[in-house]
């Protein structure tokens, strides 16, 4: 067998240019797969992480009506305890469940500020500063000032929003909003900190205020619009989810609240999972395309070596041995091309996983999405191994067609090709 592999490898040297072209075709497609897979995984990991942090937690609890009208940021459908006893009791009981490390409360509401030139629409997030920082590490994003404190009439906002408002840390700003009774109100806050983020949503639309202040201003005592439960690992949320659901069921609260895992809580994430599966098919198609070059090469090889194949048959090689030899030759091209491609793709992905690809221009106008415009492809040896194996297997399978043709040649007819 080693002898046949050796022969297959040596045969590639007969027409070096042709072999090189075939190998390059495979290498390019494999490199594209490594890079695309890395890019996609990097994008998905980043997006999943952002959605978990700012949208869903690992398990999300919202009022069912609120979920249906989530875009309206209605304050009329709060989370206010299992049976209206207040969110604090609910939080305490959820915290006691196994695997629930953190319960993060938020109130999200719409607000507006006006400057001399324009009215600026904003999103207010009432958060518990300590819990929020434990979950999202929001303080690490502070570029000036400090984080908000409970009980104080102060806000932290993104530097994009600061620019729009033309304010500095320490300045005051008056914001307009509607409370839970639909009363239109205004209040003046002191700006105590500025955060900077790649996310246009965080940078240009959101301001954070203390949760207790938000509850007071919005007339929502002991209420929030959502509760995010944090488990030790997002991928293990499913493990702890049933206990949460059982608790809500025991309290007869399932008819009022939606209890959702992070995958269920956002349709966009489900589409991403689907995209991954579709891309797996695209990878196979991509390698098949490059395999056409290899198939063409192998067809030419069989044509050129008909006489030699006849000689081998005369020596006593069976059809399956000849098939094996031709497939091996294609496989050697597949192995070399896939190896080069996975190494090259891996190098590019590794480089860009550190430096990132800036899609800010392309994503302008998409401030509403939790998508980081700088994508850091995910470098993984697994992606390289996946692309390598895919390249070798698909190329070898593609070679079966010309190899079968060679194997079926009648020895006497093949020799007559002299």
């Amino acid at each position: 067998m080693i002898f046949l592999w050796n022969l297959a490898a040596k045969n590639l040297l007969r027409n070096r240019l042709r072999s090189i072209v075939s190998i390059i075709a495979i290498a390019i497609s494999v490199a594209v797969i490594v890079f695309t897979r890395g890019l996609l995984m990097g994008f998905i990991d980043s997006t999943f992480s952002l959605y978990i942090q700012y949208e869903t937690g690992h398990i999300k609890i919202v009022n069912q009506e609120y979920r249906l009208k989530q875009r309206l940021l209605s304050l009329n459908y709060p989370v206010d305890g299992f049976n209206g006893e207040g969110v604090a009791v609910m939080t305490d009981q959820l915290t006691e469940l196994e695997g629930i490390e953190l319960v993060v409360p938020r109130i999200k509401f719409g607000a507006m500020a006006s400057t001399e030139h324009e009215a600026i629409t904003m999103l207010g997030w009432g958060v518990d500063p300590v819990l929020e920082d434990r979950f999202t590490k929001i303080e690490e994003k502070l570029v000036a000032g400090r984080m908000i404190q409970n009980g104080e009439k102060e806000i932290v906002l993104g530097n994009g929003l600061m620019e729009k408002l033309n304010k500095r840390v320490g300045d005051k700003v008056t914001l307009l909003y509607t409370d839970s009774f639909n009363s239109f109100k205004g209040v003046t806050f002191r700006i105590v900190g500025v955060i900077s983020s790649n996310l246009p949503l965080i940078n240009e639309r959101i301001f954070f205020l203390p949760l207790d202040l938000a509850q007071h201003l919005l007339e929502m005592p002991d209420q929030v619009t959502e509760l995010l439960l944090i488990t030790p690992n997002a991928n293990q949320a499913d493990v702890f989810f049933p206990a949460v659901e059982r608790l809500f069921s025991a309290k007869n609260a399932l008819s009022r609240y939606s209890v959702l895992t992070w995958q269920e809580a956002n349709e966009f994430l489900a589409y991403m999972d689907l995209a991954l599966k579709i891309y797996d098919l695209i990878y196979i198609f991509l390698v098949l395309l490059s395999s056409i070059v290899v198939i063409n090469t192998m067809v030419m090889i069989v044509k050129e070596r008909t006489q030699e194949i006849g000689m081998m048959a005369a020596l006593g090689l069976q059809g399956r041995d000849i098939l094996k030899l031709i497939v091996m030759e294609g496989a050697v091209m597949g192995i070399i091309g896939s190896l080069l491609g996975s190494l090259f793709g891996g190098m590019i992905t590794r480089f860009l996983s550190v430096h990132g690809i800036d899609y800010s221009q392309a994503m302008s106008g998409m401030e509403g999405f939790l998508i980081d415009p700088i994508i850091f492809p995910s470098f993984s040896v697994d992606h390289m191994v996946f692309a390598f194996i895919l390249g070798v297997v698909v190329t070898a399978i593609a070679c079966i067609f010309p190899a079968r043709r060679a194997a079926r040649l009648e020895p006497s007819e093949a020799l007559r090709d002299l």
Partner: protein
Amino acid sequence: MTLIELKGVEKIYQQGKIEVPALKGIDLTVETGEFTTIFGPSGSGKTTLLNMIGCLDKPTAGQITFDQRELGGISKKELALIRRYNIGFVFQSYNLIPVLTAFENVEFAVRLVNNRNDKERRQIVLNILAAVGLEGLENRRPNELSGGQKQRVAIARALVKEPKLILADEPTANLDSKTSIEILEIMVKMNQQLKTTFIFSTHDPQVMEYASRLIEIRDGEVSIDQKGEKAGVYS
């Protein structure tokens, strides 16, 4: 002892709707150790006859017996195994694998027939290459060898598995007369030392002079079948 027996062997090639008869009822017996030459004009059916004897093709009609085994109805796989263990081929254009050295070309045939260890296999190949006068040229590739040297490699490749029969299709056609004689001398030596049966197809009168038996094929039929005296273990 009879090695090959052909009874009423016919071969018809189909070219579109036209049937072209290549062999028309050949009856022939070849004994072990014969040094036989098949000659005749181009298109007479020499190569077709060699293909039948060499288990490379099946007759349209008739019966072929090789080493007391009737070949009718046996599978392609079995035919390949008969060729692998019993028959060596020498071709007019050598048909060496260009990317392999002389040693590797011969070794290729040995690897097919036995499972000897590397050391033993190496010795067998070196011995046969020395026997055909290629000592010191083992590591040359075909493009580094002369026509005569290539044909010696081809002969070594055919002989190395110690077959019962060697079929040579115009083995001297591409060689000058001096080299042709050298090649023929090697074959005669092997025929006499190993008692290997040789069957040639040729136009070359020199080859005919070495044969112990001359068979002329004309229009797909045996027109002359006579024993010579110069070569063959039975001469």
